[in-house]
């Protein structure tokens, strides 16, 4: 009975739930974000336990790493804006109209009911569900790659993946259009030790990112994980002020954003013909094409994630002002 792994699972599950609750109920927003990051890493661990290393990598790098960085950046911005002008250093945002406790409780009870219903539904579902296992196993030899998850992402369901890159593109277009004008909070000054660390880490990150991308064909990893790691490099560059986006860089940034989407879509369209449909790579070129797509998508993901972190479009600050339409 006392299977140590099971005890580990239960403890992990309990800490995940506890951290989720804690991060939502803790008062201080900084603590909230830190708790969330821990939550994310533990979730990734749980997914490793469920034999999903790719997902765990993606969650750790993107779901937790990039999201955490975005949240922290926003918190910094909020505290800067409200701290310097509104004298509300700790809340960070203007208080919303208070919700009556009764409503909150009713909502919570409602959500609780939904959750119970979902749990009931989950328990009623088939234990070892049917799936795509057989289909994937049959199709893998003709997919051009050896790692099943990469096969699904870039071949079987490549259309999904293309649209996912489109979502990223839409996000960066939307973010550039939303944030404008006024200067943001200045990056915090972090000192010499940090600069040294960054200098040391940068080349290592490039190696790791490329490795993840390259290894993705046979082993866990791939464009998204690699792109996220490379994006971390961008974050470091931005945070150390080693790179400051200039208005003149917008053109090249645009090209970098659309590179992955454009190449992916073009390849998908151009392989059609001779009895093949869109996304149907010729078998002999499949591996090459997939690697090409992955490479371009990785670049786009890295640049896009870094741009999402940076936020506003780099425009000359003289055009600042709220009515800068």
């Amino acid at each position, binding site marked *: 009975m006392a299977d140590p792994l099971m005890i580990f699972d239960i403890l992990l599950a309990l800490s995940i739930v506890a951290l989720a609750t804690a991060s939502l109920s803790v008062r201080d927003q900084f603590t909230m974000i830190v708790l969330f990051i821990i939550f994310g890493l533990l979730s990734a661990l749980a997914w490793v336990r469920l034999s999903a290393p790719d997902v765990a990598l993606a969650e750790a790098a993107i779901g937790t790493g990039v999201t955490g960085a975005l949240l922290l950046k926003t918190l910094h911005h909020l505290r800067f804006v409200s701290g310097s002008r509104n004298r509300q250093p700790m809340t960070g945002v203007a208080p919303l109209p208070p919700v009556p406790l009764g409503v909150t409780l009713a909502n919570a009870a409602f959500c609780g009911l939904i959750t119970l219903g979902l749990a009931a539904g989950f328990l009623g579902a088939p234990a070892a569900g049917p799936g795509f296992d057989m289909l994937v196993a049959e199709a893998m030899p003709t997919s051009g790659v050896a790692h099943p998850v990469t096969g699904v992402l870039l071949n079987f369901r490549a259309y999904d993946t293309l649209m996912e890159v489109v979502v990223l593109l839409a996000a960066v277009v939307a973010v550039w259009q939303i944030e404008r004008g006024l200067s943001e909070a200045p990056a915090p000054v*972090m*000192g010499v*030790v*940090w600069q040294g*660390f960054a200098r*040391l*880490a940068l080349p*290592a990150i490039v190696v790791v990112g490329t490795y993840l991308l390259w290894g993705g064909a046979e082993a866990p990893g791939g464009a998204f994980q690699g792109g996220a790691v490379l994006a971390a490099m961008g974050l470091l560059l931005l945070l150390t002020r080693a790179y400051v986006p200039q208005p003149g860089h917008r053109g090249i940034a645009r090209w970098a954003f659309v590179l992955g989407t454009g190449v992916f879509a073009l390849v998908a369209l151009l392989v059609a013909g001779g009895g093949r449909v869109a996304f149907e790579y010729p078998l002999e070129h499949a591996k090459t094409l997939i690697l090409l797509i992955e490479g371009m998508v990785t670049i786009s993901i890295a640049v896009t994630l870094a741009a999402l972190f940076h936020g506003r479009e780099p425009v000359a600050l003289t055009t600042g002002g709220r009515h800068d339409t």
Partner: protein
Amino acid sequence: MAEVIAAVLMTAGTVFFIAGTVGLLRFPDIYCRLHALTKADGLGLALIALGTALLAGSAGAVFRIALIWFFVAVASATCSHLVARHARQTGTEVQHG
């Protein structure tokens, strides 16, 4: 033989981790906590890495483990430095008592 040594090293590492965690929970202020964490966990990590390296099958794996150890050590040192620096700049008091 290698397994036994690895097990001993990893157990020792875990003990250091536990010690560091106890320190994190028990020490009065942020500076003391950082002290406990960086010292104890750094050693704990080194021991565990060593233990895993003994069990690793290939030289490549050992190299990677060493790399991981190196970067985690550097990153955690940098992080601790940043936390302490931030605490000092925002004026967090040292607790005496």
